């Protein structure tokens, strides 16, 4: 079994595509963009769009409720979430996968993995992923990593079972999709939304 070592493989792919989360948001809102042809075929842009769609479906009512109650224009929790999304909507590092032929180099991108973790969390009832970070060196097959996840939870869902379910689901997905040795999966609940919403849609 051959092992991949570095990203200096001949023919390594280009770095991130260079389009911002703001451009994706505008595209989502208007359906138009000078870069629409690119966005429609770019994995990082598609991951960003998917996250924004889930976010919009989940948070539309929360934003309205926050604004009504707090009568303030700034929504720190949403700003933080958008900042994290901005960082995560990138290809990031290339995580090697083992090969059967020594001439081959196989990878999954860090962006693909974090987008997958977001998708797992955002489709669970009561959970909205705020941040997902892979900590540790991923440059070799079998590298040990730690996963740091921050979530916003919705009121009425038992927090510990929810965190355990998320941890179990994420661990299962990472075991199938990567060859990383996943150590701790740290889940931090950074906000509890008191307003009842229907996951995946409006209330």
């Amino acid at each position, binding site marked *: 079994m051959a092992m991949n070592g570095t990203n200096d493989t*001949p023919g390594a*792919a280009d770095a991130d*595509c260079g389009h911002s989360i703001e451009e994706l948001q505008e595209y989502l809102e208007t359906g138009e963009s000078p870069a629409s042809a*690119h966005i429609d075929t770019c994995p990082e842009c598609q991951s960003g769009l998917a996250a924004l769609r889930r976010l919009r479906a989940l948070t539309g009512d929360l934003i309205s409720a926050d604004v009504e109650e707090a009568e303030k224009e700034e929504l720190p929790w949403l700003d933080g979430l958008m900042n994290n999304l901005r960082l995560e909507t990138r290809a990031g590092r290339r995580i090697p*996968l083992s090969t059967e032929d020594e001439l*081959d180099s196989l990878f*999954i991108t860090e962006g693909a993995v974090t987008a*997958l973790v977001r998708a797992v969390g955002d489709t669970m009832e009561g959970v909205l992923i705020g941040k997902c970070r892979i900590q540790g060196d991923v440059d070799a097959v079998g590298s040990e990593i730690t996963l740091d996840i921050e979530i916003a939870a919705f009121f009425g869902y038992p927090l510990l079972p929810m965190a355990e379910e998320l941890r179990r689901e994420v661990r299962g997905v990472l075991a*199938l999709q990567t060859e990383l040795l996943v150590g701790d999966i740290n889940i931090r609940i950074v906000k509890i939304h008191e307003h009842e919403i229907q996951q995946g849609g409006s209330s």
Partner: protein
Amino acid sequence: MKTPADVREAILSIPGVVTVYAARPLLRAMVGDVAAGLAPGGVEEPADVEIKRRADSTHVLVRIGSDSAFASTAVARAVAAVVRAELAAEAHPVSVNVEVSSVRYAS
């Protein structure tokens, strides 16, 4: 001699492969801009699958989207094997670089 389009079609037939992305998205975008703004119809866009034939070797670059029901390693290996089979007639060794750029999640 197999073309990038031939190889792309073969890759898309692999279970677990959802899509094939442009191997060089930045290059494609730049060429697209040039083609649209300066030389309409006069610039050939890079293919999704990049095949570089050199004097003593052939290098292939592929970026795919996969399905979460399939293990990424197995899908990437299958892609490499299919590419090698498609290019079996090449005179030189073929090295294949496969990047799983997205995983479509089906809960």
